């Protein structure tokens, strides 16, 4: 843990990347329905921002074009992965999350049965964290999506990673599940870097959405301890 903190000091002082995996740029846009984008294409503008940030900031370009064959690097870390929501208002909120590949590879989607209930959520989260072990660079933040559809719950799990450490879901029942899961995850013994210890996760954040009566989708997305995200409103 001391070395992780020392790393953050060096990265801050010398303005170099915390981790060499500077991620794919995940960008959440919340576009006010009264706002109108003029003078160009919104997606192109986001990608231009990513391009400049990764080139000018000496960040590693980690995106390859054709994933299953040639895998040639796009050289500027574009395209970003953009999720846009239309919301009330006249502003544009931009949330950027550079997401490393090691933790992202540990993602899970489980289509649970509707009668499986709360205990099956606990069992599946614990099983996943246990299997993932050191791979996701613990201490991790565990993002959990429950409900919705397959793709909706994955996005919920990812958005759950954006929450401030220590905050809980406003719903008391969900917050209770978060607290119980965090306590149990930290009993698994994985610890920082997986070398053994009682701090495996810093938070378990859950987002919930109504689901079809035939299903209870569960998604798990991990953030490594290098949890990088920033937001701005324009």
């Amino acid at each position, binding site marked *: 843990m001391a*070395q*992780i903190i*020392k*790393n*953050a000091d*060096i*990265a801050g002082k*010398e*303005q*170099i*990347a*915390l*981790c*060499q*995996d*500077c991620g794919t740029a995940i960008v959440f846009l919340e576009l006010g329905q009264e706002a109108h984008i003029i003078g160009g294409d919104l997606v192109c503008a986001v990608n231009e921002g990513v391009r400049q940030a990764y080139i000018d900031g*000496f*960040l*590693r*370009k*980690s995106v390859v074009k054709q994933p299953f064959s040639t*895998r040639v*690097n796009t*050289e500027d870390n574009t395209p970003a992965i953009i999720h846009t929501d239309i919301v009330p208002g006249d502003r544009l909120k931009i949330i950027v999350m550079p997401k490393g*590949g*090691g933790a992202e*590879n540990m993602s899970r989607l489980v289509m649970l049965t509707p009668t499986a209930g709360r205990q099956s959520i606990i069992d599946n989260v*614990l099983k996943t964290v*246990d299997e993932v*072990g*050191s*791979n996701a*660079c613990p201490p991790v933040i565990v993002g959990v999506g429950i409900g919705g559809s397959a793709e909706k719950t994955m996005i919920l799990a990812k958005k759950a990673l954006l929450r401030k450490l220590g905050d809980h879901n406003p719903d008391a029942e969900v917050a209770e599940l978060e607290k119980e899961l965090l306590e*149990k995850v930290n*009993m*698994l*013994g*994985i*610890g920082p*870097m*997986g*070398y*053994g*210890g*009682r701090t495996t996760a810093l938070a378990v954040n859950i987002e919930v959405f109504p689901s079809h009566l035939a299903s209870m989708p569960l998604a798990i997305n991990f953030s*490594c*301890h*290098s949890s990088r995200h920033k937001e701005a409103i324009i």
Partner: protein
Amino acid sequence: MQKKIKLPLTDEDIAGLKTGDNVLLSGVIYVARDAAHKRMIETLNKGQSLPFEISGQIIYYMGPAPAKPGQVIGSAGPTTSYRMDPFTPRLLELGLKGMIGKGKRTPIVLDAIKKYKAIYFATIGGAGALLSKSIKKVDIVAYKELGAEAIRRLEVEDFPVTVINDIYGGDLYDQGKAKYRIIGK
């Protein structure tokens, strides 16, 4: 206990290393990750030789961030090792003596580590800025077009690693977890 080892690793060094040992490595290590591993094995399958003499060497699974002006290398921490597992036994057979990465290896690699008397170290995932300070020189050895995934030769000084798998069958991830586990034993 912190040991210091001057590279290349000798058989005596490896025999003296035990799971959980913290070690500072100084000397030459090679860097290769996913794409370079795939290409090395393709090269061997064509009957050609590898772009560097692998016997007795260490491979660090890493793809650095670009160096800023005046830096030797950018952030340079480990990537997850299991992705190299399909390629690793072949390299161990050719005399690769050590690997540095993070995360658990598959049983086939663990068997090969014992069989060929090699060692698997981990270093601190996500501490790339800190680790870059132990790297004194970098040269691209092969596959330059792979960019961050090119094979590099590093000269390191007191590069901090921890022994995960020794030749005696120890596994720090299993042993560490067992020690602290209080649920679902």
